[in-house]
Structure formats: structure tokens, C-alpha cells
């Protein structure tokens, strides 16, 4: 699996091209923009774009769909029946499907928006706007926040610390880092109690001088 990060200056959102090096298929998570850089990555790798995964219906996360659909003929997966005039493969709740040769797990994470989904491929979880590094996704009210927190506790925080999180905005992070440094998730923690001294690992340290 190869992942390329693309940043959209219009909505300040992250998009990702995920390539399958064996099947030469690819999928795109949140095509907020379809530009020359993304096109070059697809074509230089000779990827066939087989699927588009949309985390939620805010325009900055799918605005590139129109251009993409003129070039390729991928299936669109989302929790909405239609996006920008394009019919989608409707996803509800949690489950798994196959796209571009990958087993893609999906998790409903409503709160930031009612249709928010997270997608997981191997040890990489694309969180959309449900969570970004250090912050919970924005919500309109306390109910939405509680709802989102509950979903994240059951679907994200129960995962291994090493699982990589690719958010819809901002830098990448890991489940382990969010457990310690996410403002909302660590509200009851204090800075002093953070286990920064924990330097343990299963791996034998190796010195490279």
C-alpha cells in the first residue's frame, strides 16, 4: 500500500491517494481537489482509480469529484446517496467492503456531521473530520460531542497505539498520541501525569554511531 497526501488550499483539507502496488488499482479518500499534482501521482504510478471514499458531505472533502469523474470511472462510497450529482454506494453503520484490492473497514462516527464515516485500510485509519491531531472534530452542540466521543471510544480508541490516523485536516497522528495529547480525549489528564518517561519497547535498542 502506498499513500500520497494531497492538501487543498481551498478548504484547507487533506485528501489521500491510496495505491495498491500489486493490482495497480488506487482509491482516493476525500478528493477535496483534483489538480495536476494528484493526476501526476496517479498516472506516473499507472494506477487505475477504482474507488473514491468520502468521509462526509462537506464540500471541501469531495469538490474534486466532478473533475475525477470526467477522467476515471470509480465507484463512490459515502454515507450519502448522492454527492455533487454523482450516485454513490451507500454505506450505513459499520462494515467492510473491497475496493482497489483492499479490504476497507468503515465506521460510522456521527457528530461533526450526521453522515461522518471513518475508513480503515490495514493499520491506517482515515478519520475525516471526526478527529484531527489533538482535537475532536467540531460539533454543533453537546449532544453531537457526546455522540462523537462515544463512537470514537468504541471504534478508534480500542485500536492498537501504533494505528496511524490520517485526518481530514492538519497533520497525521497515531492512536497512541491521541490517547495522550488530544484535548477532549484527555480532559481529565494533567500534563504532569502524561507518561513521557515511558521509553519502553519490545525491540532491542540498536546503536548507530
Amino acid at each position, binding site marked *: 500500500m502506498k499513500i500520497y497526501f494531497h492538501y487543498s488550499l481551498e478548504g484547507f483539507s487533506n485528501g489521500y491517494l491510496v495505491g495498491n502496488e500489486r493490482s495497480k488499482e488506487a482509491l482516493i479518500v476525500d478528493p477535496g481537489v483534483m489538480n495536476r499534482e494528484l493526476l501526476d501521482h496517479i498516472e506516473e504510478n499507472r494506477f487505475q482509480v477504482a474507488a473514491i471514499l468520502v468521509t462526509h458531505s462537506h464540500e471541501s472533502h469531495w469538490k474534486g469529484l466532478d473533475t475525477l469523474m470526467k477522467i476515471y470511472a470509480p465507484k463512490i462510497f459515502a454515507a450519502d446517496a448522492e454527492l455533487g450529482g454523482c450516485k454513490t454506494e451507500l454505506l450505513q453503520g459499520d462494515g467492510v467492503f473491497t475496493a482497489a484490492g483492499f479490504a476497507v473497514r468503515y465506521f460510522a462516527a456521527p457528530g461533526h456531521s450526521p453522515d461522518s464515516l471513518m475508513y480503515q485500510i490495514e493499520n491506517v485509519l482515515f478519520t475525516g473530520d471526526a478527529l484531527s491531531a489533538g482535537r475532536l472534530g467540531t460539533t454543533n452542540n453537546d449532544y453531537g460531542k457526546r455522540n462523537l466521543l462515544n463512537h470514537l471510544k468504541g471504534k478508534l480508541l480500542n485500536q492498537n497505539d501504533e494505528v*496511524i490516523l490520517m485526518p481530514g485536516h*492538519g497533520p*497525521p497522528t*497515531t492512536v497512541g498520541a491521541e490517547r495522550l495529547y488530544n484535548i477532549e480525549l484527555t480532559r481529565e489528564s494533567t*500534563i504532569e501525569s502524561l507518561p513521557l518517561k515511558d*521509553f519502553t*519497547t519490545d525491540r532491542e535498542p*540498536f546503536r548507530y554511531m
Partner: protein
Amino acid sequence: MFSTHQVIPTASLFEILASQNDIHSVDFGSLSFEGTDLSGKRFTGCRFSRSAFINSRMDGCRIRMCFFDFSRIEGSTFKNCDIQFSSFAGVRLDHADFSGSDLLHDNFNGILCADSTFNDSDLYNSRFVLATLKNSTFQNCNLKKTMFYQTIREQVSFKSSNTREALFMKGDSPE
């Protein structure tokens, strides 16, 4: 570009670092780099989590989608680097020098940073959530969309940086 990491015997990692300048998707986690010079190398999709960089040089490196989480960086320099979409969450920085670097879309959440400098760097869209910054300088930096939420700051200088475009918690002003 980020790929799932290859499992490589520890001894072979030395060979990779010594012989290659363009390194992709290798797990260097938990290694200790002491007095090492890795300047000018290009790392893409690599893991350095829980590693130690002591008195080492990474100057002029190009680093993309790499993870340095929970590492220790002491007396080391990352000057004039191009480090984008990477994570340094929970790193302990002591006398580290990131000056003159492009540090775009990087995660510095939870770092413990002392006596370090980020002068003349571009920190666009990077985050320092729940970080502790002591006796460190961010002078002449681009801080547009740089997030300093719930950051503890003691003796931190933002001189000549565009702090008004940075994101601070309400009531928390660096000026």
C-alpha cells in the same frame, strides 16, 4: 508517500542508512543515533518512533510522512530541513535546532521542548497542542494556522513571527 513498513533485521538497517540516500518505508523505531550524521538524506514513510537522536545531525534532510513519536532528540540539529506531514508527538527536545526548516503540516503535540530553536522556519498548519515549551525561540517564523492550544510556555520568544495568524486559545496571547 507512505507505505506499510517493511520488517527488516536490525543489522540491515545500518546498511540501509549507510548506503542509501533515498529511503522509503523503513521502520527505524527504537534505534539510538549518537553522534550520527544523516544530513541530506531523504526519508519517506519511515518510522523513528521511540528512537533517540543524541548529538546527531539531520541537516538538509527531506522528510515526508515519517513518525518520530515519543523519541528523544538532544543536542541534535535538523537545520534547513524540509519536513512535511510528519509526526513528532510526545517527543522530548532538548537543545535541538530546527532553524531554517520547512515544517509544514507537522504534529508536535505533547512535546517537551527545552532550550531549542525553530527560528526562521515555516510552521504552516503544524500543531503544538498540549506541548510544553521552555526557553525556546520561534523567531521570524511563519505561524499561519499553527496551533498552540493548551500549550505551556516559559521564556518563549516569537519575535518577528506572525503570531496573529497562529491559533492560540482564547485569552492566551503571546504578545
